[in-house]
């Protein structure tokens, strides 16, 4: 039977709508499951003013069968076959007649018991019960109250429509009583309408200029964009975030094309497109990768009869571009170096001082890092980049368009004639802003990006900011992921732990927490970020654990470890070896460290294992150093037959202590070698629980 819920509100931000829709879907399906209501279909739709669930649900809950076990059959009857007091008492406690008790067979034998069938309640009753709690439980990035109520939601709820089997369900939430009506488009058709079915609801609302499905609105935008641009042979500059935002922002999309005076094309494209995107949410139009003096906007409506919408937007955009042009020339009246003198006036972080302080740290960190990643040739330029990196925070342009930070500084540096490695470092140093974003294209940008982010992380941790659960006020996770991404994309080979030491050292007395704890926390924090990255790339979680437990001294090597494990996981040798390695690991648990004395090997198989181990070790260590874990692993696997023979024919726990210790020492040496490739004890073998 058809179920329809529409929560109708004042305009919610797109991020709120998205959050609410995914929560609604998840929670509603959970509720149905726990209430034993079958659903043939559950669909979620939404606009900035509506959260909608449509479903095809069973008319009632499934009946629940329940068996209640009473006394064993053996004691339930007296010798004469009449029920014993135990049976009578049980029947009474269950509210049934004693002769209604049945024999129930269990693993432990036969018992008396009752089989009860709890009849399912009508779905509509259950829905009226669960929906108020479901709606109130939605959580949004920021919640508000309104009127005289203490109810909290994204924006005020205006109306609730709720139908089941064409009849409306009655319940109240947030001071609103559910009914069978809703409203059309706010400006074009604000009338109240009554509906009975989802089909009717969708069709009537469409006539009233509301398209309830987000995908459909998105398609409408795209097809209108195509139509507008067809004759121009131009393209809309792709902006997935903006498209998604707009498809939630409007209830009925109308795409309009507008233009701006050509002389603004002298502004860099970064600034033009930002001026269009932010504020008015306009798309740039490009032809052969060149910006045209045109834009596309999406209005909430279905027409622009007098072109008022287009002209209005053109006027506003022109004013914004005029501002941008003013800033562009004004900002360049004083050089970056000159402007840098004011960096001391802006706070980086209250306890960590100003951007001047940060700049000085960055210069030292990039100089150090440039040496470590073979960038000595551009060391001078990356230090120059670091010096200029934060200056654009003092420009009018960044004050107007904060999202252009970095880019603006880079562009000004380019205009001032700084060499490409220097201005690109500035331009790219905030990249990547997410795992989906690109890493900086330049080597200098990559170095500055890592330095900038690590400086922020170490500083925050150093003054006691901890990231827990949903709490990450300084965006440390995003920063750490950014660093990992750059290191992995650029295949940077350097000691991460020493870089941490360097950053901590550069901070000096500003770090208030004990230095070793800051470092420990950072290493653990990065290990978790790497786990997240590798797992979201599809690597098996246990292989990821095995790779990361071997340490993240070298971040890039941790990826090579994961890849090596992944490439060998299908090999027939893999599982048997893992089992042997786990066995080694188990034997060694809680043992103190011993030293090998090769003279004490008495059995043939232990001597042979020792010899094999020495050969393997000498071959493997250089490979580990190089990061060739795949090859290292292949060679390590050659130890298999020797170690098998050892376990088959040699008693590790020999009675004579000297011999026992020597054998343990050999296993310890093997283990030490293994752990440099991966922590095999973390690998989970099917049919065997992870030994953790």
């Amino acid at each position, binding site marked *: 039977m058809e179920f329809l819920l529409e929560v109708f509100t004042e*305009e919610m931000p797109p991020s709120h709508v998205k959050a609410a829709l995914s929560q609604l879907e998840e929670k509603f399906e959970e509720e149905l499951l726990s209430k034993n209501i079958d659903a043939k279909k559950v669909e979620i739709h939404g606009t900035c003013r509506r959260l909608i669930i449509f479903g095809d649900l069973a008319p009632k809950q499934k009946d629940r069968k329940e068996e209640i076990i009473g006394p064993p059959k053996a004691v339930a009857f007296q010798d004469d076959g009449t029920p014993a007091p135990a049976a009578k008492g049980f029947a009474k406690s269950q509210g049934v007649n004693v002769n209604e008790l049945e024999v129930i067979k269990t693993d432990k034998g036969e018992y008396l018991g009752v089989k009860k069938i709890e009849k399912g309640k009508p779905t509509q009753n259950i829905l009226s019960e669960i929906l108020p709690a479901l709606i109130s439980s939605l959580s949004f990035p920021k919640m508000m109250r309104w*009127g005289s109520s203490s109810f909290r939601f994204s924006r*005020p709820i205006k109306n609730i429509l709720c139908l089941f089997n064409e009849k409306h369900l009655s319940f109240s939430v947030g001071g609103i009583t559910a009914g069978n009506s809703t409203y059309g488009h706010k400006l074009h058709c604000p009338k109240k309408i009554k509906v009975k079915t989802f089909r009717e609801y969708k069709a009537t609302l469409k006539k009233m200029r509301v398209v309830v499905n987000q995908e459909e609105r998105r398609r409408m935008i795209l097809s209108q964009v195509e139509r507008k641009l067809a004759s121009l042979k131009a393209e809309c500059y792709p902006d997935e975030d903006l498209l998604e935002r707009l498809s939630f922002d409007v209830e009925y999309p109308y795409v309009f094309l507008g233009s701006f005076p050509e002389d603004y094309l002298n502004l860099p494209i970064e600034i033009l497109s930002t001026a269009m995107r932010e504020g008015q949410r306009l798309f740039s139009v490009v032809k052969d990768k060149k910006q045209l003096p045109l834009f596309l906007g999406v209005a909430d409506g279905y027409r622009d009869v007098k072109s008022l*919408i287009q002209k209005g937007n053109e006027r506003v955009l022109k004013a914004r571009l005029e501002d941008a042009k003013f800033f562009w020339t004004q900002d360049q009246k004083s050089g970056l170096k000159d402007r840098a003198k004011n960096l001391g006036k802006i706070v980086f972080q209250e306890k960590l001082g100003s951007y001047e302080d940060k700049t000085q740290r960055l210069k030292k960190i990039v100089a150090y890092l440039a040496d470590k990643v073979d960038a000595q040739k551009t060391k001078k330029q990356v230090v120059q980049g670091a010096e200029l990196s934060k200056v654009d925070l003092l420009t009018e342009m960044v004050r107007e368009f904060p999202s252009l930070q970095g880019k603006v500084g880079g562009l000004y540096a380019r205009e001032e004639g700084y060499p490409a490695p220097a201005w690109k470092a500035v331009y790219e140093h905030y990249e990547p802003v997410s795992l989906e974003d690109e890493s900086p294209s330049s080597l200098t940008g990559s170095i500055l990006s890592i330095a900038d982010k690590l400086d922020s992380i170490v500083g925050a941790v150093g003054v006691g900011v901890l990231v827990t659960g949903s709490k990450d006020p300084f965006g440390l996770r995003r920063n750490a992921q950014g660093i990992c991404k750059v290191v992995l994309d650029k295949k940077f080979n350097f000691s991460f732990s020493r870089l941490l030491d360097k950053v901590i050292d550069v901070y000096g007395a500003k770090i208030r927490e004990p230095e070793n704890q800051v470092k420990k926390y950072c290493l653990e924090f990065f290990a978790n970020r790497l786990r997240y990255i590798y797992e979201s790339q599809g690597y098996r979680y246990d292989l990821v654990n095995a790779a990361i437990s071997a340490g993240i001294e070298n971040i890039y090597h941790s990826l090579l470890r994961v890849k090596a494990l992944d490439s060998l996981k299908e090999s027939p040798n893999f599982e048997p070896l893992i089992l042997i390695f786990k066995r080694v690991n188990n034997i060694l648990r809680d043992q103190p460290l011993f030293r090998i004395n090769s003279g004490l090997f008495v059995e043939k198989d232990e001597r042979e294992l020792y010899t094999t181990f020495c050969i393997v070790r000498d071959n493997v260590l250089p490979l580990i150093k190089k990061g060739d874990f795949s090859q290292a692993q292949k060679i390590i696997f050659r130890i298999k037959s020797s170690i098998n023979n050892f376990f088959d024919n040699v008693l590790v726990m020999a009675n004579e202590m000297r011999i026992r210790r020597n054998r343990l020492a050999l296993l310890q040496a093997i283990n030490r070698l293994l752990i440099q490739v991966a922590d095999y004890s973390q690998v989970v073998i099917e049919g065997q629980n992870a030994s953790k």
Partner: protein
Amino acid sequence: MSIQNLIMNLQKFWADQGCYLAQPYDLEVGAGTMTPDTFFRVLDKKPWKVAYVQPSRRPTDGRYGDNPHRVQKHFQYQVIIKPSPPDIQQVYIKSLVSLGINVQEHDLRFDEDDWESPSIGAWGVGWQVLLDGLEITQFTYFQQAGGIDLSPVPVELTYGLERLEMFLEGKDDIYDLDWSHDVSYQDLRYVEEKEFSEYNFSQADIRGLKESFRLNEREAQQLINKDLLLPAYDMCLKCSHFFNLLDSRGAISVTERVKMIAQIRTLVSQIAQKYTAREDSA
């Protein structure tokens, strides 16, 4: 429609909605929100409906009269209704219709924009209202003021009168606007913008302002101790304006900025707390 007609229209409209028409407050403020008709009246539990024009000063926005849409003083039309009525969005749209705007021919959008003023410990949730891409109103459900959770929740509508008028007259330059049929914005404001920009950016006496800030801050605290909350609040407004002037003179260091904002906020929070205690027990 001239600016004065726009004002008269809004006055009529909101008076018909039951608002009391206040007169502009006689101290320099950064926004209509800061005047006592808003700040104090949102704190208590009593219903409240008020509408007024408030000249608002933002010294750093001065452009010597050279910029067609940026000025160091502009006019806000401020409406406060407590508790927020359920149909306030429709009423607001009607107010635009009453100005002769055919909303069905335009794109009217409520675009997420939350508002916050750290120095008076206030924040709210709402939108900037965009008319064909032009921001004409800030629409806010007040959640906190003076660090206190507001209940009932007031709604605040702040129309930018110049913006709205530029839309109505279809003009691109603020100075071309008509204040009345024969007095232009240029006639009234150009010299003022030029001279005040010079004052704000170059002439305001830094030492004098710092001293004034200190004196008023001290006096505010003394007045709070004597439960003279309205005069104490005036002192805070003065501090806030001195701070803005110092800011436009580029005379505030990092640490000073944090400290001065905290000083004002501390005073304002005390006032808000004492005021609510007094009103709730009255």
